[in-house]
């Protein structure tokens, strides 16, 4: 009886509306937050400091947008370069591109930021360093670090996209007389980009969210601004809310643009076009018009190449000569590249040989397990910290969030609005925000909500769990949607209920497919655990900073060790992921942040 009513859409909406109203009533009037809200800190002139603190948020937003835009440009350029590099026939290019991608993908962005900002200038000669410092080096370092980090992910996406192009298409384009360059620019890249727009789009989104980390090298972006207001007035709740709303709107705008791109790229007959398509056409008209102008210009300047069949003797000789020159140039280029690689390797060797390995050796224990088991009485887990703490956090986070992801992911595919809307809200809300904001939220919110306090370790672990849950839910959703719908219909028609069909038929198959993606998420969460340092969790990055703080003159040694520790763990996991992928032979998967 109840079930039949619940299947009606209006009943579902009514239930949701009632639930929302109850929640609003409860938290608006009944629940005691034990906290005095004072939103005026955002727009009133502060008496102690003599400034309107909300203005910082606006400046911060400007910086966030600048960093995101420039670094996305860098990331896309480098991503295309290294994505192609990974497919190169010339082995050294291939090795270099693979090393680049693996290294930057498997170390936390935080550590990379520290490296570009604090370590790199120390390796430069004094004059160059001073010249660099005349610019806004915070911004430069953060943008560069972010661009390079994102480019590693984009390279993988682009590689997968290119590899998905059927071989026959290439053969056809070569046999129709196109040069390799023309094939690349006219056939491969346009087709590949169509296939990779969705994953590439989420990399742009991640890039914007990751720009929140630029605050650790002193860039005054949005997250920095909210932190600044918090620390000046101790009104964390208000400041964090404001920043969250801004981040969410930014995410929505980016998602909207990507949607338009998607519409624009769809190949559909004219009569099926919707308003969305028309809007996309208008939106992209300026870009496309300038592009077509460019191609018209280039076809003016460059004559079509002639066929090889009826050349005069002189023409044939010229052609042979040109080919020879081309070959020589390619040899020169290859030699230059190999010597560049050698130079890099030798420089790295020289840098490493200057290290004080005794320092690394002496502090390795500290970095891995802090002062376990001799911790103070109120330390979590007998004073555990460092690398093992990071691992522990991510293990807890992934195992709990797996169930969240499963439930929410199934809810997201459900037709019942009662499950669909809350699941979608949860996913979009969490995925629209940087992890660092989620960490601050959980940190402020759980104690207010439950009236109990948590150790920062648990607070950060819950934040990681909630954050990963949203991403896993999306993995689960796509896994479920990959299973042919006929299976569910067949299962239901044999008399199984929806839940039984899900549990016994759909999920077991979907989970098998999702395994590589889940491992990828695990890597991401392990790296992200480094962000817990902001609320003072004694994980690897925090311990490293404390160590650096005390030793002072060995930043290179410490940060390199930390990067190596993260890299080893992540790389081992990604090898496992690749094995799984091959074994289960599913579609290529992508790391998500």
């Amino acid at each position, binding site marked *: 009886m109840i079930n039949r009513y619940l299947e009606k859409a209006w009943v579902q909406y009514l239930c949701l509306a009632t639930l929302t109203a109850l929640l609003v009533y409860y938290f608006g009037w009944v629940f005691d937050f*034990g*906290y*005095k809200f*004072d939103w005026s800190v955002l727009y009133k002139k*502060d*008496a*102690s*400091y003599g*400034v309107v603190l909300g203005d910082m948020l606006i400046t911060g937003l400007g910086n966030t947008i600048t960093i995101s835009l420039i670094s996305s440009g860098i990331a896309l350029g480098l991503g295309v370069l290294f994505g192609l590099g990974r497919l190169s026939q010339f082995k050294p290019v291939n090795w270099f591109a693979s090393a680049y991608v693996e290294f930057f993908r498997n170390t936390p962005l935080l550590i990379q930021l520290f490296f570009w900002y*604090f370590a790199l*200038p120390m390796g430069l000669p*004094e004059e160059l*360093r*001073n010249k660099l*410092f005349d610019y806004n080096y915070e911004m430069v370092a953060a943008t560069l670090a972010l661009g390079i980090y994102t480019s590693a992910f984009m390279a993988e996406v682009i590689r997968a996209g290119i590899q998905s192009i059927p071989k026959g298409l290439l053969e056809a384009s070569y046999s129709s007389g196109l040069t390799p360059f023309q094939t690349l620019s006219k056939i491969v890249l346009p087709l590949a980009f169509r296939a990779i727009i969705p994953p590439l789009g989420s990399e742009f989104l991640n890039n914007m969210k990751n720009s929140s980390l630029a*605050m*650790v*090298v*002193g860039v*005054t972006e949005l997250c*920095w601004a909210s*932190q*600044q207001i918090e*620390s*000046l*007035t*101790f*009104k*964390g709740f208000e400041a964090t809310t404001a920043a969250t709303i801004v981040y969410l709107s930014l995410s929505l705008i980016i998602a909207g643009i990507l949607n338009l791109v998607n519409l624009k790229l769809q190949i559909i007959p004219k009569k099926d076009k919707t308003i969305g398509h028309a809007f996309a056409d208008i939106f992209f008209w300026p870009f496309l018009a300038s592009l077509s102008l460019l191609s018209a210009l280039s076809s003016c300047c460059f004559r079509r190449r002639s066929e090889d069949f009826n050349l005069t003797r002189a023409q044939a000789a010229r052609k042979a000569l040109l080919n020879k020159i081309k070959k020589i140039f390619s040899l020169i280029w290859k030699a230059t590249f190999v010597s560049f690689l050698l130079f890099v390797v030798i420089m790295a060797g020289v840098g490493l040989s200057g290290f004080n390995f005794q320092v690394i050796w002496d502090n390795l224990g*500290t970095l891995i397990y*802090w*002062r376990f088991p001799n911790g*103070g009485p*109120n330390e979590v887990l007998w004073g555990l910290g460092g690398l093992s703490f990071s691992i522990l956090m991510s293990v*807890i986070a992934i*195992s*709990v969030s797996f*169930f969240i992801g499963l439930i929410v992911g199934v809810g997201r595919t459900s037709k019942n609005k009662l499950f669909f809307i809350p699941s979608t809200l949860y996913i979009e809300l969490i995925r629209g925000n940087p992890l660092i904001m989620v960490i601050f939220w959980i*940190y*402020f919110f759980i*104690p*207010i909500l439950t*009236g*109990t*306090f*948590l150790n*920062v370790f*648990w607070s950060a672990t*819950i934040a990681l769990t909630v954050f990963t849950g949203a991403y896993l839910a999306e993995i689960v959703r796509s896994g479920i949607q990959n299973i042919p719908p006929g299976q569910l219909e067949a299962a239901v028609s044999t008399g199984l209920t929806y839940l039984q069909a899900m*549990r016994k038929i759909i999920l077991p198959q979907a989970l098998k497919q999702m395994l590589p993606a889940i491992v990828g998420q695990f890597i991401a969460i392990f790296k992200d655990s480094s962000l817990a340092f902001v*609320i*003072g969790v004694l994980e690897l990055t925090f311990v490293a*900073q*404390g160590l*650096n*703080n*005390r030793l*002072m*003159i060995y*930043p290179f040694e410490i940060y390199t060790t930390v990067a190596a520790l993260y890299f080893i763990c992540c790389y081992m996991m990604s090898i496992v992921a690749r094995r799984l992928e091959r074994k289960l032979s599913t579609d290529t998967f992508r790391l998500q942040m």
Partner: protein
Amino acid sequence: MKRLMIMALAASLVLAFAASAFAGATYDQVMKDKVVRAGIMTDSIPGAFYNAKKEWVGFDVDIAKAIADKMGLKLEMVPVNNKTRIGFLQQGRIDMSLSNMTHKRSRDNSIDFSITYFFDGQKMLAPKGKFSSLKDFVGKRIATMQGTTSELNVVAALKKLGDPAPKVISFQKESECFQALQMGRVDAWSTDSTILLGYAAQVPGKFELVGEFFSNEPYGIGLPEDDSKWRDSVNFTLQDMWNDGTYQKIYDKWYGPDTKYYFPMTDKIEMWP
């Protein structure tokens, strides 16, 4: 499914045990448990830091110990940083916070403060011999730490000296400010002078404090809002410590003339007859 349920249950139990109940009125709670929980920083030299043996030491640590001793309580030290110290206090995770907290009116809206237990002021730390007075820093790059009052102070001070747009870069940690100073990214680092002394002492002879104090930074012990009984007992304890010389002893241990962080005492704590 049963297995799933059990695992979920186990996970929620772990979380539940991690949390413990909210405290009532702080004074009653502390006196009942005979334990006082103090929030102390971990990376402020010589205020509170981990030494080479990974022991937690410093001026704030000793003051907290002395307060607990005087009240006959057991001390429980909770690590905090400039992002967590206020939240912990408001949530009752700690009963007092000794963590370089400058007493400001707008901060007093959220928590209470004890009487000033340490007198500090802001100065500039710069490479030795490069600058001689505060005026020399006009147009230079200055590092500060986010979450402290130093940044606004230094901006205000430089503006007063005629710098139209002071170039101030703020970092998350003290060590990062110092690193930026060492590598020449900034010309000076400005914050409370005792912190600067602590760092300058790590590489003797390279850096010096320049110029006069340009702000007043009275440190208070952060206390939960609206709990006058607890606030009184902390204040009285501080005054007793001053009177019987405990305070001086601790002060001399960390900031006395024989230490690396020599810092002459400039004021005396507020004394109620």
